[in-house]
C-alpha cells in the first residue's frame, strides 16, 4: 500500500504539472488573442489580423495539448485515489461536475468556432467565440481551484454516519475563503507566463531582424502585461495567498519559510538549505524581522516554527516545500525586475534597440513555467501529510485494490508519454515561431 500511494502521488503530480504547462499559456493567450481580436474588430489595421492569426495558431496547438493531457486528470481521482474519492466525492464531485458541465462544453464548442476563423463563421460570432473561450478557460480554472481549495481548507461539509463527508452548503464550497486569493494568484501567474512568452517571441524577432513590426508589437503588448501582472503576482495576490497559508496551514507556512523554531521578530531567509538533522537552515542569508513584518505587519510578531507542531503533522518532505517556495518567490521577483526594466526602456524609447535586454527577455520565457510548477509543488507538497487538510491523510486516500506492479506500469507509461508529448509540442511551437506571423513571400 505504501509504494502504491507513492507511485500514485508521483503519477498524479507529474501528470498534473505536465498538464498545467499548457492551460497556463492558453488561459492567458486567450485573453491576449481576444485583445488583438478586439483591436481588429475596431478596425485598427491588418497588423492586428495577422497578429491574431499568429497567436491563434499557437493557442490552437497549446489548447489541443491542454485538452488531451487534461483527460487523465478527471479519471485519476478514481483510478488512483479511490478511498479519497469515496470519502470526499459528495463534496468535490460538485465542483468537478460543474467544471465539466459549465466550462468544458462552452470551451470546446466555441474553440471549434474560434479556430474556424471569421471567414467561415462570420466576424461577429468569431469575436463572441474568442471572448467566450477566454471566459470559459478562466471559469474552468475557478472550478478546479475550488476543488483544490476544499482539499486545502475544507468548508461547507458535514460528516456522515458512514464516515464519508457530505456537502451542506453549495455556496460555502464556491465561496471558500481560501479560494479567492488562490484563484487570483494562479490566474495572475498564468498572465505572467503568457505575456512573457509573447514578449520573448517579440524579442526573438527583433534580435533576428525578421518580422520586426510584429516583434515590436508583441514585445510592447507582452512586456506591459508582464510588468502589471508580475506586480499583482507579488502584491496583493501573493501576499494574500501567503497570509491564508499562515492563517490556516501553520506547518506548510513554517516549512515554506524554513522556520523550525518559534520566534518573535522572525527574520526571512533569502537562501539557505534546510538541515533536517539539526532542524535549522545551513548557510542562511536573513533579513532581520522581515518575516514577522510581512506576515503580521508587526516587526515583533511571533512566528510559529515547525517544532511547535507534532512531527507526524509535518509535511513529509520539508526541503521540497522550502525549495519550491523559494524558487517561486525568487523567480517572481526576477520577473518584476526584468519586466520593470523593459517598461522603463520602452518609456524611454530605447527598448527595441537594447539588445542585451532583448536577450534577457527572450531567455526569460521558460522561467514562468518553472515558477508556476514550483508554486503548485509548494501548495501540494506543503499540504502533506493530508490529502484533505485535517480530515484525511494522503496515506489513507489511495486505491485499495491497486497493487504496486500496476501502479508502476502506468507511472512509467505516463512518464514516457509526457516526455514524448513535450518534445512534439516544443517542435511544433518553434516551428510556428520560425515561420512567423507573415510568410516571407507576403512580407
Amino acid at each position, binding site marked *: 500500500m505504501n509504494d502504491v500511494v507513492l507511485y500514485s502521488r508521483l503519477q498524479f503530480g507529474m501528470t498534473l504539472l505536465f498538464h498545467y504547462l499548457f492551460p497556463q499559456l492558453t488561459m492567458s493567450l486567450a485573453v491576449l488573442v481576444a485583445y488583438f481580436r478586439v483591436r481588429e474588430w475596431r478596425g485598427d489595421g491588418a497588423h492586428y489580423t495577422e497578429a491574431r492569426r499568429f497567436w491563434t495558431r499557437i493557442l490552437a496547438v497549446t489548447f489541443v495539448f491542454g485538452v488531451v493531457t487534461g*483527460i487523465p486528470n478527471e479519471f485519476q481521482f478514481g*483510478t488512483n485515489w479511490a478511498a479519497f474519492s469515496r470519502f470526499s466525492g459528495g463534496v468535490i464531485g460538485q465542483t468537478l461536475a460543474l467544471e465539466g458541465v459549465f466550462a468544458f462544453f462552452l470551451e*470546446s464548442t466555441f474553440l471549434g468556432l474560434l479556430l474556424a476563423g471569421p471567414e467561415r463563421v462570420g466576424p461577429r460570432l468569431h469575436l463572441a467565440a474568442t471572448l467566450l473561450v477566454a471566459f470559459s478557460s478562466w471559469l474552468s480554472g475557478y472550478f478546479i481551484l475550488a476543488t483544490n481549495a476544499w482539499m486545502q481548507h475544507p468548508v461547507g461539509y458535514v460528516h456522515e454516519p458512514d464516515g464519508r463527508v457530505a456537502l451542506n452548503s453549495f455556496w460555502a464550497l464556491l465561496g471558500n475563503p481560501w479560494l479567492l486569493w488562490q484563484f487570483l494568484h494562479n490566474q495572475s501567474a498564468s498572465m505572467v507566463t503568457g505575456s512573457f512568452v509573447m514578449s520573448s517571441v517579440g524579442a526573438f524577432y527583433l534580435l533576428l531582424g525578421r518580422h520586426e513590426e510584429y516583434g515590436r508589437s508583441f514585445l510592447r503588448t507582452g512586456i506591459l502585461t508582464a510588468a502589471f501582472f508580475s506586480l499583482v503576482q507579488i502584491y496583493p495576490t501573493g501576499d494574500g495567498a501567503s497570509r491564508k497559508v499562515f492563517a490556516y496551514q501553520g506547518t506548510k507556512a513554517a516549512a515554506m519559510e524554513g522556520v523550525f523554531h518559534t520566534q518573535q521578530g522572525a527574520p526571512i531567509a533569502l537562501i539557505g538549505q534546510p538541515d533536517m538533522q539539526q532542524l535549522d537552515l545551513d548557510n542562511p542569508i536573513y533579513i532581520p524581522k522581515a518575516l514577522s513584518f510581512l506576515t503580521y505587519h508587526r516587526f515583533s510578531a511571533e512566528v510559529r516554527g515547525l517544532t511547535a507542531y507534532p512531527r507526524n503533522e509535518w509535511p513529509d518532505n520539508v526541503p521540497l516545500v522550502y525549495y519550491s517556495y523559494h524558487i517561486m518567490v525568487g523567480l517572481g521577483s526576477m520577473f518584476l525586475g526584468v519586466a520593470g526594466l523593459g517598461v522603463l526602456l520602452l518609456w524611454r524609447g530605447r527598448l527595441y534597440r537594447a539588445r542585451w535586454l532583448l536577450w534577457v527577455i527572450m531567455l526569460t520565457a521558460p522561467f514562468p513555467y518553472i515558477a508556476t510548477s514550483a508554486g503548485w509543488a509548494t501548495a501540494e507538497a506543503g499540504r502533506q501529510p493530508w490529502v484533505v487538510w485535517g480530515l484525511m491523510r494522503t496515506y489513507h486516500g489511495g486505491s485499495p485494490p491497486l497493487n504496486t506492479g500496476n501502479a508502476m506500469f502506468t507511472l512509467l507509461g505516463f512518464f514516457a508519454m509526457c516526455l514524448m508529448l513535450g518534445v512534439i509540442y516544443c517542435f511544433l511551437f518553434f516551428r510556428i515561431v520560425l515561420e512567423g506571423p507573415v510568410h516571407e513571400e507576403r512580407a
Partner: protein
Amino acid sequence: METVWFCLLALVAAIYGILDGYDLGVGALYPFIGRTPEERESVRRTILPVWDGNEVWLIAGGGILFFSFPVAYSSGFAGFYLAFFVLLWLLIPRGLALELRDEVPHPLTRGFCDGVFFWSSTLLGFLFGVALGNVLRGVPLDASGYFFVPFWTIMGLGPHPGVFDWYTVLAGFSTLAVLMVHGSAFAAARTVGPVRNRARQAAKYASVPAVMLSTAWAALSPVANPVLNENYFGHPWAYALPVGAGVAGLAMIVLAWLGRERGTFIASSTAIVLSVGASALALYPRLLPSTLDHAQDLTIYNSGASHYALTAGLVWGAFGLTLAFGYSVFAHYKFRGRVPPQANEGAASQAGQLH
C-alpha cells in the same frame, strides 16, 4: 432523487453514444472511405470542429458520475484501472493526431497521423462496447466495496472474469459495427462524390453484421448475468426498449440499402439511444452488479451523494446540461452542409482558418 440522476447519467451516455459514436465510426472507416489526400481531408473536416465537443460528453459524464455516485465512481475507476489507462492512451493520441495533422505539411507525418487516428478510433469504438459489456456482466465486488479486474483471465464468464471475455468481446465487436454504420451514415450525409458513395457502401455492408451481432449480444446478456432479466420479467412494457432498438436496427438496414444516408443516421441514433436505455433499465437500480453476491451490488442507494448534494446538483445540472445540449446543437448547425474534397497545402497557407 437518486433515480433522477440515474436517468440523467443514462441520458448523458446516450448523447455521448450518438455524438462521439459517429466520430469514432468515421475514424474506424477513415482510410477506406477517403482514398486520396483530398478525400481524406474532406472526411476529416466533417468532424474536426465538433469532435472535441462530442468527447466532452464523456468527460462531463465522468464528472457527473463522480458527483452523483461517488462510491460507484471510485470503485469502478479503481477496479477498471488497467482498462482506463488503455482508454486514456488511446484518447490522447487520437486527439493529437486529429488536430495536429496539418501542422507539419509533409506526407510522412500526415500518413502517421492518419494511421494513429484510424487505429485509436477503431480500438476506442471496440473498447466502449467492452466497457458496457463489463458493466452489464458485473465485476467481483466483495464486501469491501472494491474489486480489480485484470485484462483477461480465461476469456470465460465466472465469478472472477477479466475485462475481456467472450461476452464483452462480443459487445465490443457489435458496438464497433454499429458505430461504423452510424459513422459512415454521418460521413455520407456530409460529403459528396466518391467519398459519399463509399460511405454509403460501408453503411450498407456494415449494417447487417451490426444488427446480427447486437441481437446476439442482447440475447446472450441474460446468460452473462441473469439479474439483467429482473426488470423485464415483471414489466412486459419494458420490452418496448430492446424491441424498439431492434426495429430501429432493421430500419437502419433498409435505409442503408436504399441509400438514404440521413434516414440511416437517424435510425442508428435511435438504435443507440434505445440500446443504452434498455441496458440502463436492465441494470436499474444497480450501477455495477457483483459477480460474487448480489448483496454486494453497487446500487444508486448505497453509492450516492447526499440528498442535499443531489438536489443542489439538479438545480445547476438541469440548467447546465440544457445549455450544453444547446451548444452541441448550435455547433452542428453551424458546421452543417457537405464538405467537398479539398486540396490542403498545409497549415502554412491557412493560418488562422485552420479548419
